[in-house]
């Protein structure tokens, strides 16, 4: 692009926040749907929640919270021009994110193993409320999982940019924006934990 456009870091952050607005509303729609259904089927949701593996959910919460911390520390490091440390922090985030996905995969795998997946014959025998519970569970954790994958890809690029000095002390708004995205993914999980895993 033409070089005349001066840099507007605040504008970039504002744009990112506006994008996050759309993400919040996107998940907000699902949360509204969740409350609607939970209101209709309190007992079934209670029972469905007790079938989920709360321990895995809690561990994953800790993993994501920690990964959020490492991102924000990476930004501090960049602000102080500590490149090595920033890269270490970002690397840690990537590993934690992957850990989250692996745990998630085990969890879903176990459900599939028990014949619990959308459209499964076993699911069809459950009471309607529980079918809805699992429908929402797979949709919401699945969509969240997609966001984690996207976030990891973006942070991977950031790691590369830090290594090649495209992100540096006087120019780190990209890293900051990617961090914002990652934190939002974390916040969504903060809500998913009590809604599904601790629902019982």
């Amino acid at each position, binding site marked *: 692009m033409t070089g005349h456009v001066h840099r507007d870091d605040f504008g970039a952050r*504002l744009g990112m926040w506006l994008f996050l607005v759309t993400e919040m509303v996107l998940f907000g729609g699902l949360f509204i749907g969740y409350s609607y259904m939970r209101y209709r089927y309190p007992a079934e949701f209670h029972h469905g929640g007790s079938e989920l593996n709360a321990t895995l959910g809690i561990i994953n919460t800790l993993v994501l919270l920690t990964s959020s911390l490492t991102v924000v520390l990476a930004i501090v490091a960049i602000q102080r021009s500590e490149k090595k440390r920033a890269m270490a922090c970002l690397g840690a985030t990537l590993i934690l994110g992957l850990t989250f996905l692996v745990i998630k995969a085990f969890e879903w795998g176990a459900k599939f193993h028990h014949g619990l997946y959308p459209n499964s014959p076993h699911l069809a025998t459950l009471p309607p409320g529980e079918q809805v519970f699992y429908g929402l569970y797979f949709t919401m954790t699945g969509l969240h999982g997609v966001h984690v994958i996207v976030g990891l890809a973006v942070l991977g690029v950031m790691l590369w940019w830090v290594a090649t000095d495209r992100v540096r002390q006087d120019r780190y708004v990209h890293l900051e924006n990617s961090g*914002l995205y990652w934190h939002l993914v974390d*916040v969504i999980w903060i*809500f998913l934990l009590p809604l599904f895993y601790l629902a019982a």
Partner: protein
Amino acid sequence: MSEHAEHAAEHPGYGTFIRIWVILLILTGCLVGVSHLGQTAAVWGLLTLTPLKAGLVFYYFMHLKYEGPLLKIVVLVTLGTLLIFFALLFSDVAFR
């Protein structure tokens, strides 16, 4: 940019964020604990502790604390809108 300079002046350090992280972990512990105390406690825990955690992430990790009013308003407007959607939807569901 001038705003950037102001912003840079008050960059918080590592310590702040680690402290927030510890608080978040503790809150998660509380949430799990509370959820074992029965249905009402669990719901109240959900309604209070979860927004508190989310708020901390927004306020510190996402640097809202250090931004001007505009971004704060943006977030509040969004949450407000969602809340209103929710309330109006329940004017149907809850009175059926």
